[in-house]
């Protein structure tokens, strides 16, 4: 490993470490205060507060944060494998479940897109 890539790698590890510490802090805080909010969300709020103070710029954590978000799929693949235990359920309800997901997703997309489009046009008319 060259010196440059080693430096980049340790930098990445440090960024991931900061995100992990914020997550653990968030979990602690949420447990202490008996909040029903997951630790990750509290950690995210903490990080937003840190950004708001202006002492740390988002660019500082960019590499680590982007890596985690880009590879997010890998982290929930194990949950998908719960399908192994739901074979009978899928055989009996699979098509109905897919129908619900398909129809509901179509509805969500139409409702969201038209609401935002309408709100934007309304604002254009009234701002002008």
């Amino acid at each position, binding site marked *: 490993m060259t010196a440059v890539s080693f430096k980049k790698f340790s930098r990445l590890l440090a960024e*991931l470490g900061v995100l992990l510490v*914020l*997550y653990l802090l*968030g979990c602690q805080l949420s447990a202490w205060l008996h909040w*029903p*909010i*997951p*630790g*990750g*969300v509290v*950690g*995210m709020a903490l*990080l*937003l507060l840190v*950004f708001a103070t202006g002492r740390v710029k*988002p660019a500082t*954590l960019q590499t680590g944060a*982007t890596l*985690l*978000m880009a590879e*997010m*799929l*890998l*982290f*929930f*693949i*194990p*949950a*998908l*494998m*719960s*399908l*192994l*235990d739901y074979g009978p*359920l899928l055989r009996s309800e699979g098509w*109905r*479940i*897919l*129908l*619900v*997901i*398909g*129809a*509901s*997703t179509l*509805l*969500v*997309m*139409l*409702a*969201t*897109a*038209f*609401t*935002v*489009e309408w*709100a*934007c*046009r309304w*604002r254009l008319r009234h701002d002008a």
Partner: protein
Amino acid sequence: MTLEPMSLFWLALTLLAYLGSRWLYRRTGRYLLSPLILVPVVLLAVAVPLHTGYAEYARNTHWLMSVLGPVTVAFAVPIWQQRALLARHWPALSLGMLVGSAASIGSSWALAHALSLDNQVSLSLLPRSITTPFAMPLAHDLGGVPELTAVFVMFTGVLGALMGGVLLKYLPLRTPLARGALFGVGAHGAGVSRAHEVGGEEGSVAGLVMVLTGIFNLFMAPLLRHLL
């Protein structure tokens, strides 16, 4: 303690399938080869003939899911970077998220009941349009099965990214805001990558809206529990 080579096998296979599929998808751009579809297919194709149960598969792979916590923290970066967009368009975006979330939860519940699905399945369907790190804790809160929700979230992403592309062709949407919100609220992560292919502003809007919708739904959990 006994050595369990089979459970390490599952971790290795998961990582290999993921890296392989990511490489293939980047090279070919074929949707069927994307990790969202190919990895579960490969893993199931090996696990089902071997009669592997979820507990055995998860023994050495479940820790991967705990990374979803730090992923949630990382969402602060895009939110902060898009705060100007949010400051300018928060009324339209909030309204879209509110209507979209209500449509998602309401229609999932109504359809699941109309088709007389199992109660646990119905509950696990409710958070399916938000991104996994938020959907799994929400499912747990509502009394559903978080793993089952992750499966439904995946199907929503696969179907939503396809449907969203078709919808954009036929809907008279003139603003990038509406096009981005369609993907961000309707199809979470899979939708966001699709929105980035449509345009830069669509992608930013979708990414921002995806995270905000997740947070919004999570904070609505007490109200939902009350209604159910």
